[in-house]
């Protein structure tokens, strides 16, 4: 068992009558990359705010490096928010220097030495440009560099790759993998199931609770979808909708999650089509889990 960096035991957070996080257990070890998946309002951001020590729990316990969140534990965390958290009118190097002043100034309080070489090679050409004028992919690299500059033990990334091209995205994940290989534990939220493959394991949250966990394969399990191939997809789309079996369109093929091929065939009526079963994708399984959770909650 590797050292546990972050641990949540039955953690809850209520805002008035609303329970944003409901009995969440989480354990993150050294060198682990854990992906947190969830719709808006699932509780991901609230959970992160509690881990950062910005928000108190209403119940349960959060431990960072074996102690409750504090200014001292915060200094061992690197955090990249969705909004990146950079000063637009400073250059990447100036942002880094400012961050150094915050994280590196007081080693006796647990602050870390910030390495001057922390500005990665890829950012050198931009060192004299203010962040606000940089392309989004470069801004994201700068935010990563800043979050990693004080060699944090725990890295928290909130939707880190939004809006960048696939090669730039691969390079950001490369940075994450290098940090993890050096022992940093990483907790990352994403809306994009393709990125789940970069994580050692996943946690799916819905309505404040963890509804599934494990690798993508474990979460998908034996979930299946019906696949409809037809020359007249628009007619098939309308027939399925009318039968209460909403389909998604992929190219000219329709996919119907959670529906039996025989039911789909019946719903199609006179529409000529071939209907087969196929394994669900992670996104389709995620959708099913989220929907089930909200139905359970409504009927409760």
């Amino acid at each position, binding site marked *: 068992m590797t050292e546990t960096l972050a641990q949540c035991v039955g953690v809850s957070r209520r805002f008035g009558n609303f329970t944003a996080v409901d009995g969440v257990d989480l354990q993150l070890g050294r060198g682990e990359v854990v992906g947190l998946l969830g*719709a*808006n309002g699932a509780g991901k951001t609230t959970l992160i705010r509690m881990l950062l020590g910005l928000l108190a729990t209403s119940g349960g316990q959060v431990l960072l490096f074996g102690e409750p969140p504090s200014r001292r534990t915060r200094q061992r965390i690197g955090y990249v928010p969705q909004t990146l958290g950079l000063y637009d009118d400073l250059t990447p190097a100036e942002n880094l220097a400012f961050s150094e002043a915050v994280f590196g100034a007081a080693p006796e309080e647990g602050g870390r030495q910030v390495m001057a070489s922390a500005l990665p090679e890829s950012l050198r050409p931009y060192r004299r440009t203010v962040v606000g004028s940089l392309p989004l992919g470069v801004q994201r690299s700068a935010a990563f560099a800043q979050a990693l500059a004080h060699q944090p033990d725990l890295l928290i990334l909130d939707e880190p790759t939004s809006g960048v*091209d696939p090669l730039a995205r691969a390079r950001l994940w490369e940075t994450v993998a290098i940090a993890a290989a050096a022992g940093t534990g990483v907790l990352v939220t994403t809306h994009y199931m393709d990125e789940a493959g970069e994580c050692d394991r996943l946690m799916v949250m819905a309505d404040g609770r963890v509804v599934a966990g494990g690798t993508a394969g474990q979460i998908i399990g034996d979930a299946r979808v019906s696949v409809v191939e037809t020359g007249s997809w*628009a*007619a098939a*789309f309308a027939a399925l909708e009318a039968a209460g079996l909403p389909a998604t369109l992929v*190219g000219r093929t329709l996919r119907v999650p959670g529906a039996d091929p025989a039911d789909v065939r019946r719903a199609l009526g006179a529409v000529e089509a071939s209907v087969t079963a196929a394994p669900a994708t992670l996104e389709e399984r995620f959708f099913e889990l989220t929907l089930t959770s909200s139905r359970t909650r409504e009927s409760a």
Partner: protein
Amino acid sequence: MTAPSPGSGTGSAAAATQDWWGTEEASVRYGDKLALDHVTFRAVPGRVSAVVGGDGAGRTTLLRCLAGALAVTSGRVRLPPSLRIGYLSAGSGTYPDLTVDENLAFRATAYQLPAAVARERSAGLLERAGLSGARDRLAGRLSGGMRQKLGVIASMLHQPDLLVLDEPTTGVDPVSRADLWWLIAQAAANGAAVVFATSYLDEAERAVSVLALDDGRALASGTPEEIIAAMPGTLRVSDARPEGEARRRAWRRGGRWRIWDPPGQPAEPQEPGRPVAPDLQDAVTVAILARELAGAGAESVELEAGGSR
């Protein structure tokens, strides 16, 4: 299946005979910057097409041309009359200080849609997209996903011949995204040629045809299968990051390393990894990488990645 076109004048007659909307060799220059460089793109009625590329690739410029909002510097555009186009711009597209209902009523008036037709269509689409309970809320108070759904509904309410959506899913969670995909499919089922922009290739795979842009130029275009088939060279997958020169041709994906071997430069037997069949994401990544390596002058790489030029 073809959309009725109330109030569109000669537009509907023209629409019935058009087999595509789009651009031919279109260029757009802002000062000394060429934002779009000889791009050919075709959107076909009843089909969904994707325009992919990162920040600054030229997606928004192309989509603004398709919406008729921006004139090309050179080249040609073929568009329906403006009343027969629907457009959702990136990041906005709704009026924050109007309610959901007011947003739709205002758009319906702008599109000269009879009020009764607008009310009926609005009710159906809002219900299906899970927005029925939010009709009296200010658009500015909606969550990002709800606002994007409203924006798409507002742009498709008049059942346009060409529907242009700039990053409809950015910042939208997977549940709202499923509603957006349904709306997009519905618009195509009504006969619209639908174009959407995204930076995510797994989203582009939903489209019948894809145009990948980089630095204003077409990197690759065609069906996902065509783009994959046009990828130059071959691909390996390895558990370990390659050493030496191959490092620059490698990128991380799914916890492993993809290594691209350009044409005429096959991997030596002792090099790590085993051959892997590329998918759309690999093919587009290779196109970006090939251009990057060629631009760096490090080596000559033939750019044959299925571009439209």
